[in-house]
């Protein structure tokens, strides 16, 4: 079991969702974060104060998958999230020891397989 954490541009979030859907990844969680990488700067002004917006809006995907789903998941995010410009984001794959489905108490692979 792995947890795939993908950080992408907000404007690409819908495309990533769609790509994951096509890759038959059914469970995922999304949150809004801010990130800093190598992007060029964005400067804002407030009444004589100049401010550098160091942080950019990003969307963070968190997807728990069984081991053989890691590759398709990573590929889906990579392809759908890519624009080729600095700031596209990163993917981290983190090992997971146990997964539980709260509704049923099922464990591990059973927990991430959707019941149809």
């Amino acid at each position, binding site marked *: 079991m792995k947890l795939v954490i993908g950080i992408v541009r907000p404007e690409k979030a819908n495309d990533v969702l769609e790509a994951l859907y096509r890759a038959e990844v059914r469970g995922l969680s999304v949150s809004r974060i801010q990130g*800093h990488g190598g992007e060029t700067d964005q400067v804002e002004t407030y009444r004589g104060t100049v401010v*550098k917006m160091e942080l950019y809006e990003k969307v963070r995907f968190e997807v728990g998958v069984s081991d053989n789903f890691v590759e398709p998941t990573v590929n889906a995010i990579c392809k759908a999230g890519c624009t080729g410009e600095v700031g596209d984001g990163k993917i981290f794959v983190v090992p997971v020891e146990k997964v539980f489905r709260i509704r049923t108490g099922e464990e591990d692979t059973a927990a991430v397989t959707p019941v149809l």
Partner: protein
Amino acid sequence: MHDLISFPIPLGAVKNGIDSGDTAWMMVATALVLMMTPALGLFYAGLVRSKNALNTFMMSLGAMAVVSVTWVVIAYSLAFDKGNGFIGDLHNVFLRHVTNGPRTGLAIPELVFVCFQASFCIITAALISGAVVERMRFGSYLVFAALWACLIYAPMAHWVWSSNGWLAHRHVMDFAGGVPVEMASGFSALAAALVVGARKDFGRQAILPHNGVYALLGASLLWFGWFGFNAGSALTTGKQAPLAFTNTLLAPATTLGVWMLIDYLRGRKATAIGAATAIVVGAVGITPAAGFISPMSAILLGGLAAIPSYALIVWRPRTRLDETLDVLAAHGLAGFTGILFIGFFAQASWNLTGNGLLFGSPIQLGRQAIAAGAAPVYAFCGTFILLKLMGLVMRIRVHERDEGKGLDVGQHGEEAYTRGEGAILIRPEHAFDLEYEGSAK
């Protein structure tokens, strides 16, 4: 039935031709209409994505700045000066010959009249922004607003409200601006949407209003201001003012009810965005008719006006036309409905001016039809040509990249909502050590 007794004209104590009650009313009405433009900004800002909220609001405020000045410099003269049937002349540019004294035929100071009419021109220009939000360059929009006020609004106001206007000569009834405000803005919006083009995300992503509460509050404040707009268009507390006031309550209320019902019957919920829209549609529908039809006819008009506008709003997003906030449906079409409705339901016993078809005067319907035909054509073509010409000398749209990031950052260097974390202070730099900047190599 009703006779003159039912239509008293209270002239108040007139001294030097000015009535204090009328003046009080018209100053308040003017302030109310001026308040409508920021209310529109709030309404529109709620309907866009949060990354464009400030820009959307700023388009309305920007219109207040440039159109106010344009109005007193030249557009007022073009609209209300004698001139010919099509447009006024330049007798009143820079408010020459305008004084504190009464405007001919009225019991209010001419200055108040100038401001009241200014408020109409301002909001009409601001309305058009709804068609092009989330992508039009702010500077270009300001230039457009000033030119549009002179070239489209002023002539159209002249047509119906100057004693010399060609539609006025044909006895077209337009109480508070079906022609120069509602149809002008609606069909200009259509042209603007076509020239500027669709947003890059349009039809590809779900684009949702970012704050429904703003939309509801904005629409409510618009309704509040509309009492000044319509009842103020009597230019006195007498004549049709009380009637127009009453109808401005009843028509939008009915539209709102009918709209919620349609929403519901279509197997859906009574949406809040729909309700906000309905208030606007109903108020627009009654705008040309407010002082000409009976309260019960206003209820009928309110109900009827919902239907075509609702249909257009449902249908429009299925097309490739990104007339973003549906100015055409809410203003152009509802104004059209209202103008024609007068042709059927005008009632001389209420308006002391003339009847419509149902009260024995079929010719009035023909007159209204002329207005309903001419206004869309002029507004659409004029705006289309104007924007195309502007496009030859300046950029009209923001760069696609900036559209993605949002116009708030791109055009105004700000975000609407922020909590401040992650923003690094650059200037003034006294307290923040420069070493930080230096350490980055």
